């Protein structure tokens, strides 16, 4: 049933890969070496955030156009871009 949410590879890229990267960074990178006062494994954890964003960007590009007809609100206009 997961294929209804997205093709199988997308949750792997968008969820499983960032989570694996997070765990690997947290527990496999050295914690006794430091840069700017922060140990390497914590830097690794922090760097997972932009990588996750990139993964989700890829997933969005793959999902673009799905169910577009149902997704637009009947209530116009959008307020998201007024700021």
């Amino acid at each position, binding site marked *: 049933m997961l294929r209804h949410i997205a093709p199988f590879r997308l949750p792997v890229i968008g969820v499983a890969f960032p989570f694996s990267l997070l765990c690997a960074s947290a527990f496999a990178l050295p914690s006794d070496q430091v840069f700017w006062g922060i140990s390497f494994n914590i830097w690794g954890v922090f760097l997972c955030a932009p990588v996750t964003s990139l993964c989700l960007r890829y997933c969005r590009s793959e999902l*673009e156009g799905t169910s577009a007809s149902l997704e637009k609100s009947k209530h116009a206009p959008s307020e998201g871009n007024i700021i």
Partner: protein
Amino acid sequence: MIISFLVVIALSMVLAMRARAGHSQQSAKDFFVAHGQFGAVLLFFLSVGETYSVLTMLGFPGGVYSGGQDFIIWFFGFIMMAPTLLFFIGPWIWRAGRLYGAATIADFFGRHFESRSLEIFVAISCIILLIPIGTMQFVGIRLVLTHLMPGVVPALLTSLAAAVTLAYVLLAGLRASAFVAVLKDLLMLAAIVVVGVAALFLSQNGGANLPPASEILHATGGGESGDGAALAISTIILQAIGFLVIPQGWAVLFSARSADSIRQTQMVAPLYMVMFPMLVIVAQYARTHGIVPGRPDFVFLAVTEALLPSYLTGVIFATVTLAGLVILSGVCLAIAPLITRNMVPNLSNNRQMIWAKVVTGIYLVASVICAETSTRLMATINGLFHMGITQLFPGLLAALFWARVPAKAVIAGVLIGFFTVGGLMTSWSGASYFNVGILALVANLVGLWVVSHVSPRASSAQSVIRKVACNQNAARG
């Protein structure tokens, strides 16, 4: 310092009033979920505003100061993983909201499973679990305000904060929350970067003398990285799942203009986490430069006072306060419809709004009183929040995928989950090594499966995904 603080709070009020422009005659749905008109930009700020609270600005550096690596890993980890789940599941929650005309999580459960009992059960569970959040925000706000105005009675200060929150809600409901969240999120990012950069460059050798987090950990007696790996990983999973079912999060999802705007928002959300390295640097600066806060949670503000001029310190104190106020207004707007739409059904549009405002007032007063009297009890309940609220997740899965799961199976699963959490927390020694919420989720799923097999729903029942697909086909003709 006080003047700059008041200027920022006044600015937030102006924004709340600005949010009302063009919407002076609001319907209940407009008040609670902005009629689903928010595009990606406003949705992003609202989503981030509901995620990063006082806890982020005070609790995270406080935890780093007194805790250590495992704390950084799980705190950062669950906030990073939550958008990945919301990216995929959020659009389906939004579609289900459209399908059922839902404005609350209880609306969704009640209408999908066609069960008034389940609707009330979900509403009551959510209200109980949301109550302590207000108290904890006021505890953080009180910490800031009593330091800013030491001569004033703390209860008066938190009451004033409650009055500001009430004003946001009364002025424009969720729209006011969203507009104030824009100010709060921009100031929050700027404040943390400014204090972090100042700490980095004012420390000798440009920060090279700061110790790694692991040294702080040893110095403060915390566990080593790896010892708490199972607890950290299980907590990340549980709390990321929790983000899928927190009631105020559903209000944010329902306020989206399209499913894709939710995806856009969640795609960008991890980039906002750039603030976390700065918060760690601030905490470490305090340890290495003899800054000893009265309590660990005050470490960020103590460093701010030590490094920045008075007027900037006032702005940062106001930012921390706003972080609490935005969360408070979001929780008020989550609790109020749970009562006025789900607990007391069939209220007219106007009466829903009137009672929502009354409920908001009562909730804020109760939270102020609890912040003064029952902090420990509320902290305990707050600690159970994610473990408790996450028990609605199997029900959400069932609604999305499994057509024949009946309402009673969802109720049975949630009750089994609640009791498993309670039982394991009090009697299992392994609770300090593994998050019991995960085990409760497994027990919940087993209970849901057993009841569904014993007494399945009629074969004509459809899952949310199937219903949306049918609607889509019908729309295409």
